[in-house]
């Protein structure tokens, strides 16, 4: 594959130079050349400011600490890549909560519930509890969620049935925790996979520009050999 420019990773300055070269090689008019160049340049500037030196706005210090722990448990660092915390999930959640009261209340309330549940179990706050007890609670929440989903799926056809049955059920003591865990995980997962850390984890191969598009033979061979068409 004739790789020319990698636009979204590594170096924006190289990208700018590369795309300008590509466009010049294409014998391409000046106005759009400038437009493309300006955009890449604008991004390079924006990247510098993004989240660096972020100041906590909505969450309390204790809530921030709890969200940090939760994000690290939901998408932990491993041998391939960093965690959701490394990907900016805590700042992301605080930032969104700061400009949306409904979301802020979901997080304030959910975090308070987590602490209360932990205390009820004879521990300290969620953040101050041992990793074992933290994981034990999240496992319970995930299991309850899965249990609920399978009951819903087994109960009828289509989205409407799902909605109706969901309403009808007693969610049990863990209900609010399952709800909040769902929110926390959605935002942590999004923060992770929209970050350079997440793209690196998946080895996202895009964000590039080419003079010609081609598909590597090794990929074709890999799939075809394993396919029913081999």
């Amino acid at each position: 594959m004739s790789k020319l420019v990698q636009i979204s990773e590594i170096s924006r300055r190289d990208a700018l130079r590369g795309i300008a070269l590509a466009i010049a090689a294409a014998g391409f008019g000046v106005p759009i050349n400038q437009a493309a160049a300006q955009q890449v340049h604008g991004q390079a500037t924006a990247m510098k400011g993004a989240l660096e030196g972020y100041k906590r706005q909505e969450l309390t210090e204790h809530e921030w600490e709890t969200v940090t722990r939760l994000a690290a448990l939901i998408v932990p660092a491993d041998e391939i890549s960093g965690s959701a915390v490394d990907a900016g999930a805590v700042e992301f959640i605080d930032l969104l909560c700061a400009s949306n009261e409904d979301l802020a209340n979901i997080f304030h309330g959910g975090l308070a519930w987590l602490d209360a549940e932990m205390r009820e179990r004879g521990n300290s706050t969620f953040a101050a509890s041992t990793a074992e007890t933290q994981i034990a609670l999240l496992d319970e929440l995930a299991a309850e969620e899965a249990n609920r989903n399978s009951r819903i799926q087994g109960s009828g056809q289509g989205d409407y049935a799902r909605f109706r049955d969901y309403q009808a059920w007693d969610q049990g003591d863990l209900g609010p925790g399952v709800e909040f865990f769902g929110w926390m995980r959605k935002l942590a997962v999004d923060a992770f996979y929209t970050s350079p850390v997440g793209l690196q984890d998946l080895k996202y191969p895009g964000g590039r520009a080419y003079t010609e598009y081609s598909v590597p033979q090794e990929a074709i061979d890999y799939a075809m050999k394993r396919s029913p068409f081999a």
Partner: protein
Amino acid sequence: MPQSNASPQEYDAVIVGAGAGGGTAVRVLTDHGMKVCLLEAGPMLDPTTEFKEHQSFHDYNHRGVEDGGKFYFGEGKPYGFMTTTSGGWTLPGEPYTVGEGSQFKWFRSRIVGGRTNHYGRMSFRFSQMDLKARDRDGLGDNWPIDYSDISPYYDKAESFIGVTGTVEGIPSAPDGIFEKAPAPQVHTLLAREAGKKLGIPFIANRRAVITSNKNGRAACHYCGHCGRGCLTASAYSASQVEIFPALESGRATLITGAMAREVSVDSNGKPNGVIYIDRDTRREVKISAKAVILAASSGESARILLNSKSRYHPNGIGNSSGQVGRNLMDTVGFGLRGYVPYLEGMPHYDTNGFGGTHLYAPWWAWDDHEKLGFPRGYHIEFGGGFRLPGPGSYHGAAQSLGYGAKMKKQIREQYGAAVSFAGRGEMIANDLSYCEIDPNVVDQWGIPVLKFHFKWSDHEWKQARHMEKSFTEIIDAMGGRVVGLANAAREADGISVPGSIIHEVGTARMGERAETSVLNKFNQAWDAKNLFVVDGASFVSNPDKNPTLTINSLSWRASDYLAEEMRKGNV
């Protein structure tokens, strides 16, 4: 309401709407030397600020979920933050209504270039079978034109815009003048193999993207982000490819923020311009012109015609047949997602390509409709590969996988092994699907709004079930398994929500006779020689060929005709 301001000059033509139809018309008419005024309800487009083509989600602190996480509350931009849409399913202060028992979604774009800034760019020619489908099954109506009438204009439009493809000789999918098509990705090759077993032809996709340099536009650089708007104009948009050059000619005047209300008429009832409301000042302005061309989208053009009431045209101008607003059609949509386990572990490569699917399947069973039990066909589009993750990409996976190291590992392993297939099929016009003026509601500009009525019939429902069967068979043959609906929000009922495919057409159809149609075969109103409608409203039927290329071609043809008629003094 402040007093009406008449424009100081008379134009040769005023065009309402700067999308595919209006963009083509302004370019062709200015090429003919005509002085044209182009009205657009939205603002001017600045690609450098509006198009987010090469941006990353992490360029934004909100990562694409928008301020306050609008995305999580269903309030984000339609098709995501990065898409270059101005407008959407709802517009503040500009409602539309839906009749009891009906469902209809109306996507309105308000910006120079309209929906062409971000559309899918599938560009398929109608065939002679499509244009005369009634001759085959007795349903709907025939077009007043033959393939030989429109074919030269498909040639022109394809040559000018640039459409990829390969010459195949398939009767349902006439060949055109094609840009070189990019190589098929692995998942599309697998689908092609499955198609061979099932008798479904997968051929190079036909998209309005140039793969060689053309008219100052650079060849596609295969970033795959056509839907965000293309800074290099390699993907066609009416704004960059037609309107900006027309403005440079010096013969076109663009007025943005102009909400057209009605076609004005002289003391003989003959159109003499357009009255619009200026969005900034809320003042009423009249543009005088020798000819009036509506290209405001099927819904908006019908709305303008119906709202242009006078003693000469008591039911709205162009509506002596009563056909304005009738024959409303959308495209039938249905899709399935699949998972192909053996793709796990495949070497990663850039699957973005030129944005859309690199292969597609044109309708293959045009001679089998009697046996199939439904009258018209569909084509298949599909997706797969190593997609750019965005907000929501892994909500579903995370929910089924729990959390933690195991979830993270499994998402990584499953990356690139998902496929999806979507059908886009022909709907047949019916009496229950139409729009009219709501007698009780106006928008914030004081303009009466549209009320939609819509019903799919059994024809469409059965076609959608055939899509389901075909996609299941393809996924099975590929060695994969069906996972679920491709678009559960849109197709939970087993067929797309009416209007949601955004191919609404037919509300001012052309025809052979003034009694049963709004326009003649040159998109010219039967009721007024100097009134034209050049958007999808003119469609007699809505074949499974996404409408834009045909809008481009018919608008070009109508513009040539208008220029010639004006030269002859007939208009």
